[in-house]
Structures are given as C-alpha cells and as structure tokens.
C-alpha cells in the first residue's frame, strides 16, 4: 500500500514538474513581444502581440481571411502575400502553392507565425469582410440529415453579399471540440433579404461543427459568423446555364436562382439536383415557385438510390449521368457546380468533353 502511494506521488510529482517546466518554457519562448503588421503598403497598420499564427492574429484584429478548415493547413484557402518577416516556407505549405505563388511570396496565413514586424498584401475585398452577431430564429429539418439554420443579423444589422458566396460559422468549444472552430457554409437565401440569412447544413458523421449545429444549437441562441467570402457567383452573360448540385450543395444555387427571379434575368437554365432517395430532396416547393417566375428554367431531380416506396419515375443514377444524357453540345453553355468533390471532378471532366471551356465552369467544392 505504502509503495503504491509513494509511487503515485513520485510519478505525479515528476509529471507536475515537467508540466510546470513546459508551461514556463511556453511563456518564455513563445512570447515574441509586440509586433507590427503593415497591410497593403501601409493602408492599414496593426500593432499586435507576437507569437500567434498570422490568420488568427488578423482575425482578432477584425480582418478576416477566408479559411474553410479552421487553420489546420488542409484547405489552402487562407493565402496572403507576405512580403517581409514571414520566415522560410514550411513543408506544410508547399502542396498548396504553385511556382508563381511561391515566387511572389504567397503563404498560408494559418502556418505563418508572427515573430517580427511583418509586411503583407491582401486583396481589397478582404477589408469588406466583417464579423456579425446573429440570432438563430429558425431551425428546420429539411431531410433526415439536413437542417436549415435561419439567422437574423443583430450587429451589423445588414450583410451585402453576392448570391453564391459563403460565410464562416463560429462554433465555440464544447464537449465534442476542445477548441473553437470556424466552418464555411453557403448562403441559401436571396441577397435582397439583407438582414437575415439561411444556411443549409448536412450532418457529417463525427463532424465537429455539424454535430454541434444539429444537436446543441437552439432557437434564440446568439451565434457569430463572418463573411461573405468566395468567387462562386453568377457571371453576367446570355449563355445557357447548367446548374448541378448534390445534397446541401443546392444552397448557393438557390441563392443564385432567387437573384435571377428578383432581377428578371431571363436565361435558359437547367438545375440538376442529385440526392440518394426521395426523402433527401428538399426546397421542392421553393423550386416550383422559382420555376413559375423563370420562364426558361427547367428542374431535373436525380435519385441515385431510389427506394421501392419512392415510386420514382424521374431520372436515376449519378447526377452526372443525367447531365450526360441531356447535354450533347455544351460549347455555348456556362456551368455552376456545387457539392461533393467527387461529383465536381466528374462533372468538370464530362462538361469539358462536351465542349465547355474551363473558364465557363464555376464550382464550389465541399470538403
């Protein structure tokens, strides 16, 4: 008995000693003192506490760089040009940078540590990105695994975005996640409604953010978002449009369709919406209403695994199979794709074979 207690005490003592040592080392060695960040040739000067990652440091100062993975270095979106003080390029960044970007000093801001005064260059549009306080005013299950989250903007009270763009949703720390994370979701509501937005969120198995949103988020709760981000939006032209969406990838396409209805943009447009079975279809009523306002709009739902009970007589197979059957010559078309990466890769391959050039294919990949 005595041995056991003594053993536990000694081991605990050793652990405590090492933990203290590490804490002390952390306090001493990761404190870089105050640093200055100069943005776009002095357009903005920030004085910050050194030692953190550039992405997080800028975010604390109200400058939001797009990032979908929450700073883990796996999405490659948070690129900024670091002109001075970024330190050497890390092996964790090289997979996301091409030769031109490497040459002009582009870095992943989630990997660069602020150690000294730093000079960076970011696109002007990033200054327009803001953080919003919002309140959950509606939570509606759209399918067994997809929820619509309806947010009312509190401060600032209005958001200006291009239909098709996305925002980042702040998930605080909770039992399923030891640290707060940000996740990107497309806006599904029309841009004319400036004081509210709707998001369409699929529950992902073991997904940190989607689990939180599906199980813990309650009506009336305040949440933080920032945005808008992204270059997935309607390009002005008269070309015939193909829209392909799978699952919650329908969200940005809905926003674009609302824009076309609101602004009277009359273009031939076919929406292919791919899901597994009838129960996974959603926004059917909304799409029907849009179809009445858009004279040259056509809607093609495609089920990959219709159940016997579904009594489905529409298109079946992968959504790209339905597109392949319909589209023979795509050389005069323009395509907007949103959904899972496998579908997008397959669709881009198919559409280029049918004569669409890559500069007319726009997509938003969900990871």
């Amino acid at each position, binding site marked *: 008995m005595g*041995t056991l207690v*003594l*053993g536990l005490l*000694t081991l605990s003592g*050793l652990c405590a000693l090492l933990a203290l*040592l590490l804490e002390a080392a952390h306090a001493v*060695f*990761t404190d870089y003192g105050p640093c200055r960040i100069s943005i776009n040739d002095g357009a903005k000067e920030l004085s910050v506490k050194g030692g953190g990652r550039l992405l997080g440091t800028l975010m604390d100062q109200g400058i939001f760089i797009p990032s979908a993975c929450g700073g883990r270095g796996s999405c490659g979106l948070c690129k900024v040009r670091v002109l001075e003080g970024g330190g*050497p390029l*890390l092996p964790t960044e090289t997979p996301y940078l091409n030769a031109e970007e490497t040459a002009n000093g582009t870095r992943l801001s989630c990997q660069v540590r602020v150690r000294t005064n730093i000079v960076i260059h970011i696109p002007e549009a990033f200054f327009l990105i803001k953080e919003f306080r919002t309140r959950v005013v509606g939570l509606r299950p759209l399918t067994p695994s997809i929820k619509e989250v309806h947010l009312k903007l509190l401060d600032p009270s209005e958001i200006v975005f291009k239909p098709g763009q996305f925002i980042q949703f702040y998930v605080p720390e909770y039992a399923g996640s030891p640290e707060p994370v940000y996740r990107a979701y497309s806006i599904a509501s029309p841009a004319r409604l400036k004081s509210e937005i709707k998001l369409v969120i699929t529950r992902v198995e073991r997904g940190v953010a989607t689990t939180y949103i599906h199980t813990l988020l309650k009506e009336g709760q305040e949440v933080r978002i920032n945005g808008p981000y992204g270059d997935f939006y309607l390009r002005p032209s008269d070309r015939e449009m193909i829209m392909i969406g799978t699952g919650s990838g329908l969200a940005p396409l809905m926003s674009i369709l609302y824009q076309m209805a609101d602004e009277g943009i009359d273009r031939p447009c076919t929406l292919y919406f791919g899901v597994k079975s009838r129960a996974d279809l959603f926004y059917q009523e909304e799409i029907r209403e849009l179809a009445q306002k858009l004279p040259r709009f056509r809607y093609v739902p495609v089920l990959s695994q219709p159940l016997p009970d579904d009594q489905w007589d529409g298109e079946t197979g992968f959504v790209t199979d339905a597109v392949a059957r319909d589209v023979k010559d795509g050389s005069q078309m323009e395509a907007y794709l949103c959904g899972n990466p496998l579908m997008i890769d397959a669709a881009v391959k198919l559409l280029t074979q049918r004569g669409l050039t890559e500069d007319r294919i726009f997509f938003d990949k969900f990871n």
Partner: protein
Amino acid sequence: MESSLNAPVIFFASIFTNNILLANFLGMCSFLAISRELPSAVGLGTAVTFVMTCTTALNYLVYHYLLVPFDLVHFRFIAFIIVIAAFVQLVEMLIDRYSPRFYVVLGVFLPLITVNCAILGVCLFMVIRKYNFIQSVAYGFGGGLGWLLAITALAGIREKIKKAPIPKALEGPGISLIVAGLMALSFMAFSGMIHVG
C-alpha cells in the same frame, strides 16, 4: 552486474549488428510512413537520433536517481514516456523560437516521434542490459544513427522502386515491408561479430 562491453563496441553494435529497426523492428510506423522521399527521411532520422541520444541520457538519470531509490522500477514505462514527450515538446519550442531554418528541416518532424516506440525501446534496453551512463549514451546515439541509416536506405530504395513494375497488390506498404525484410536479412550478415545482451 554491469554490462562488460565498452562504449565504442555498444555504439558499433547498435548501428550494425543490433539495429533497433532491422533487428528489433521497433519504430516501424514512421519508418514506413516518412520514407517516401530521401530529404524528409533524413530529416526524420536526424530528429530521431537527436531525441534518442538526449532521452536515453535523461531517462538514465530518471531511472537510477528517481525510480531505483524509490523502488518504482515497475513504473519505468510510464516515466520514460512522460520524459520523452516533455523533452520533445520543449525542443520543438526551442527550435521554433531560435532557428526557424532548423525548424523547417527538423522541427516539423518532432511531434511525429513523441510516441516513436524505437525511442522508448532504446530506453528499456538500456535498463535490461544494465548499461552505465556512458554506455547508455553511446547506445542511444548509435541506436539513433542506426535508425537514420535504415530509413535513409529504405527511402533511397523506395525512390528507385517508383519506376519499377511492382505487382498491383504489393504497391505501397506491401513492397516497403518486403524491402525492409530484405534489408533486415542483409544486416543479419553483421551478426556474430559482436554479441550484445
């Protein structure tokens, strides 16, 4: 009774005749995962060598001046792992702070080897074979160099093998394990020169 071998012999043996990777098959996971390209294999091998040398010395002190006097030797697994993990974290912080260039080469690999079993293995063998301090450090340093030698050789072979017509079913880890086995066989040629523990 202490081991009677002198330090240079132990050092030589831990590289060739008793290579921790090829004779004991410890540290296989990072050996297979990071051996696709030569530069990262050398980086990881160097990091292992450094950590192994330092942690055998540290763990020698912990074992003989803390665990033995308090009659806690049966807790050596836990104690050794804690010391290794703390040391690796500390070194990563130091390198990150003082040598960003070195961090790129070595530092990024450090978190990968916190739980490398070769490092724990060397510390445990040191106890089992009753080495003294000098012998332990020689063994740790040699063990690390042996690991570096093995992973460098495997990475070199794997870079060449990329262009070889390998049966579909053996691509990737399959062929790497076979290569590692053949390397172990060839290292067995050294055995018999020295007999350790």
